[in-house]
């Protein structure tokens, strides 16, 4: 049955904002492309680990914003502000707990996601750079862990940082300078805390967000790999389709040049 004129009119009115936006930004088209782009038919549950890592990072970003509203980066009040968040602020304990345990989960998920891309050989051509970005993300994630650990300003926090900074100082060449910069004085004190706070909530997360952006761009551009064991893997060799020649079966036999 043909649509009535009235129905068509309502539909047009409803879609108007989308058309309006599309005409001016093209974003609707991009979103459609993003949602309806094809992925290999045999993607595996292990391939949700990247999205899970992203979720864990977003949890950190959101809970971190709320913690920053109540936390005071100064040795005289940091500890008390943490107590206040844990005991007084409405749901403060939940936000702080999620941030603390989310950090561990984020790191675990990053490692698992890395293990999955390793298992799939997904770091090989053309995805080499996405692996490199991934390793940088891993380092940045651990740096978040290190800088965040000092902030509660309790005994463990303080002394772990003393040792951490000393370890930094043993590095040849730049080591002592980095340690001196981090510490910002003869001893770990107000300057150290302010520096760690700024690194923890501005510098490193900014870097992580930029790198996640690049990481996602490459995932969209290159596509995700099929599990290598899949019979219907995208990009699988097709011996029958190719004329029998020296190329056939090349991917099956171990290369004589290298094994790794």
């Amino acid at each position: 049955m043909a649509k009535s004129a009235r129905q068509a009119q309502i539909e047009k009115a409803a879609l108007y904002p989308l058309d309006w936006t599309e005409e001016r930004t093209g974003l609707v088209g991009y979103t459609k492309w993003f949602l309806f782009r094809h992925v290999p038919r045999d993607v595996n549950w292990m391939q949700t680990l990247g999205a899970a890592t992203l979720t864990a990072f977003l949890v950190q970003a959101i809970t971190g914003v709320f913690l920053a509203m109540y936390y005071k980066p100064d040795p005289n009040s940091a500890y008390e502000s943490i107590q206040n968040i844990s005991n007084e602020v409405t749901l403060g304990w939940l936000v702080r707990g999620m941030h603390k345990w989310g950090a561990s989960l984020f790191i675990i998920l990053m490692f698992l996601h890395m293990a999955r891309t390793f298992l799939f050989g997904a770091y090989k051509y053309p995805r080499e750079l996405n692996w490199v970005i991934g390793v940088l993300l891993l380092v940045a994630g651990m740096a978040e862990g290190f800088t965040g650990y000092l902030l509660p300003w309790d005994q463990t926090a303080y002394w772990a940082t003393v040792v951490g900074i000393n370890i930094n100082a043993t590095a040849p060449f730049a080591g002592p300078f980095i340690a001196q910069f981090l510490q910002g004085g003869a001893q770990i004190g107000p300057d150290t805390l302010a520096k760690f706070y700024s690194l923890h909530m501005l510098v490193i997360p900014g870097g992580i967000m930029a790198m996640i952006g690049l990481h996602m761009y490459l995932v969209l551009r290159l596509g995700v790999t099929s599990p290598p064991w899949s019979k219907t893997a995208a990009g699988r060799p097709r011996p029958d389709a190719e004329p029998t020649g020296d190329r056939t079966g090349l991917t099956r036999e171990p290369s004589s040049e290298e094994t790794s």
Partner: protein
Amino acid sequence: MASKRQQEYRAQHKRYKEDVAKEGKPFFPYAIYHDTIMSLVVVVVIIGLAVIWKYTADGTEAGMLGPLYEAKADPGTTNFVPRPDWFFYFLFYLLRIFKWPETVVLGTVGIPTLLLVLLMTLPFYDRRPERAVLRRPVAFVAAILVVISMGVLTWKGATAKESLGSETLSLVPGWAEQEGFAGNPVAVEGAGLFAESGCLNCHVYLGAGAQNLGAPDLSAEGAKGRGIEWQVAHLKNPSSKTPGSQMPSFASLGEENLIKIATFLEASKGPVK
């Protein structure tokens, strides 16, 4: 001209793109469905941990997941518990393996940097197109070895015993007896401060403590003839006496306490028997 391997790689990726276009399924609603479920699981687990943490712990009293916070940081004294977050345990334990001063830098910087570089450049030296893990034997074995050693180091780091100030304090009378300074009250007091201030997390004294960062055994420090003044200056700023020292400054203990510790150190000439 592109090498044979390069051509093969390109052909493979071209086939991949064609296959995905032809046989693939749209991200929405298929893949995004799994991603969403997994993300929800992550959020639920995080909330669950936060709830267990809060409801089994009380302030500095540990629950199933540890205390909500430790005692406030006190640069001055007592329980020096240099415990990093768990994902640094492997580094933390690596440090304990490299006890000799010349090798400390290997554990702190050398090995971690080397491993990081190897990890980052993996796609540039592992260049065969093969993806199936069982047909990448070297990569497979290397990965298993890395996972096992990281696991062992993390576990060892987690179970390593820290000597807490309160525990070592009980050793002081024995020390005074063995080293023969029981008659010197200032030295005995200094020994107490020494036991409480976390010195034993890096130094060994008559078999107590743990050797870390290449710190020397102090059982016979007094025999070196450094003098009290030298000791106090070293404690205030170790690198002023030993350039590049990894020992932290203990200036915050205060002049008076430092003199007591120095007296104790100078009285420690090694076991008398």
